[in-house]
């Protein structure tokens, strides 16, 4: 097994040892093998896929389709054709909503969609739009108030150890009912880092025959994913949070469902026959991949899957979660700091987010940046979750396989320094 110091050498951006990259939940760093795979496409076999008959075009097509197979294997899909390559989680989620809407013609105030308070805007906003267009009720599974809000009234000193920032499963059972058409749940929160018990909600959705979607964006590459074991009908994520380039993502849909879905984007490649007035659709997955996709990105995604499988996604999680929990414990000792991430590493994807009553997250992040500690500050495109937590914004440190105890120490030192600056 390679040690972390050795693994760090795979990431050119970590060449400077004084740099502490703790923003992998925003986008992960890229290993040299991914950069090389993308570079090779541009320098040796740049060509469009599925079209040309020359050698480079054949090679590009092979690499593109290999990436699809690698992704399928990575998420435990039965069939590579279930994997639709998109530009990212946002396109995946928007496309999926439109495909479902086109296919099932959902309508009516009696029916509802169930999601959670923990969603990223990329999952939530398309659902809001669907609800508005189809006049459906949008319901939100809340955070478990006993485990999440126990310390809200207190003076943000130290959180009780049982705080887990989980979803309220009892509420989920009530909110999902026989009028529920769609349930959409985030696998891991990009703010708190909570890994949700998605299977438990899948079973409730299944009981009511609701379509079940999982947003795996914060989890992909950080935690082993098996779409079938999660019990979902569809699942999506971005490549760039799992070491692939930006602009590539995945929408997985179970074949028995995918066969019945209408495409939502139209153009070249997705058609079988076209005449002046109408067109018929090509085979799956082509009919869901209109136009020229991000070929270099797909090849990079394939290389990223290879890299992650070589390291072992379980090991990524083990390292990231252990460091996040350690950081959370140290940060919680600083007066005025309230950590909003699970303290149990099994339930934490590798994130330590916190709020301080003495400074705004942007001020803290700026002080950290001076010492080359890269974190994210704000609401992280999850405003409703912050509202539920009762805080306007958080400072988030997110960890990956390439992070070490030195990064935790630099973070904690930096936050202490900020507290000295801002505390009156």
């Amino acid at each position: 097994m390679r040690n972390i110091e050795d693994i760090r050498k795979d990431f050119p951006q970590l060449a400077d040892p004084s740099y502490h990259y703790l923003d992998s939940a925003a986008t992960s760093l890229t290993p040299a093998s991914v950069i090389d795979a993308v570079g090779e496409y541009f320098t040796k076999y740049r060509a469009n896929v599925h079209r040309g008959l020359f050698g480079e075009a054949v090679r590009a097509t092979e690499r593109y389709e290999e990436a699809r197979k690698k992704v399928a294997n990575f998420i435990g899909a039965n069939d590579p054709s279930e994997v639709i390559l998109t530009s990212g989680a946002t396109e995946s989620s928007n496309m999926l909503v439109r495909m479902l809407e086109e296919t099932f013609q959902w309508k009516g105030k009696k029916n509802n969609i169930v999601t959670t308070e923990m969603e990223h805007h990329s999952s939530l906003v398309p659902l809001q739009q669907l609800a508005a267009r189809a006049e459906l009720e949008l319901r939100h599974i809340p955070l478990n108030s006993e485990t999440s809000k126990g310390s809200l009234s207190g003076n943000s000193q130290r959180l009780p150890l049982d705080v887990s920032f989980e979803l309220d499963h009892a509420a989920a059972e009530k909110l999902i009912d026989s009028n529920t058409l769609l349930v959409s749940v985030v696998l891991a929160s990009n703010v708190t880092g909570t890994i949700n018990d998605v299977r438990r909600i899948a079973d409730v959705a299944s009981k009511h025959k609701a379509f079940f979607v999982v947003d795996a964006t914060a989890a992909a590459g950080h935690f082993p994913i098996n779409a079938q074991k999660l019990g979902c009908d569809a699942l999506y994520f971005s490549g760039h949070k799992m070491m692939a380039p930006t602009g590539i993502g995945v929408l997985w849909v179970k074949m028995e469902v995918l066969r019945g879905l209408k495409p939502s984007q139209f153009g070249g490649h997705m058609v079988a026959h076209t005449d002046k007035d109408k067109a018929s659709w090509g085979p799956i997955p082509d009919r869901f991949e209109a136009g020229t996709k991000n070929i270099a990105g797909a090849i990079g995604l394939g290389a990223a899957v290879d890299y992650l499988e070589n390291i072992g996604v379980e090991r990524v999680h083990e390292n990231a979660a252990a460091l996040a929990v350690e950081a959370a414990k140290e940060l919680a000792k600083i007066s005025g700091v309230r950590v909003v991430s699970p303290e149990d590493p099994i339930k934490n994807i590798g994130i330590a987010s916190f709020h301080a009553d003495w400074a705004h997250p942007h001020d803290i992040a700026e002080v950290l940046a001076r010492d080359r500690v890269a974190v994210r500050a704000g609401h992280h495109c999850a405003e409703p979750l912050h509202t539920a937590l009762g805080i306007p914004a958080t400072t988030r440190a997110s960890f990956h396989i390439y992070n070490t105890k030195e990064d935790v120490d630099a973070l904690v030192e930096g936050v202490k320094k900020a507290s000295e600056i801002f505390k009156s």
Partner: protein
Amino acid sequence: MNNDPLYQENILEHFHHPRNKGKMEVFDIKYKGENPSCGDDITLYIKWDEAHEQIADISFSGFGCAISQSGASMLTDKVKGMSGKDIERLDDAYMYALYGVEVSPQREKCALLAVRTLKEAIGV
């Protein structure tokens, strides 16, 4: 004291002890400005003098980072007695001069939130 290049004594002083902070009971204009990237917001309360020519009183409420909040504090202290024409002349450089230190481009929206909100509020 600290040696941070941005968070110097005057900014921190205004952050910890903001001037003119609070809602006004009687006002002519109430206007909210937001910086969505930070989640900062400032609501200005403005009262004109009897001739409706100069700002007689001004206050602000809101939530945000030390830069936006100290900026609102410093600016509201300066603009009492100014006319609409005076406000129109206040530019970005004026605001940066109040801070007295270099503000990075990432914090530009925080730094200029107060002055931009004020100009929008009185329509200049």
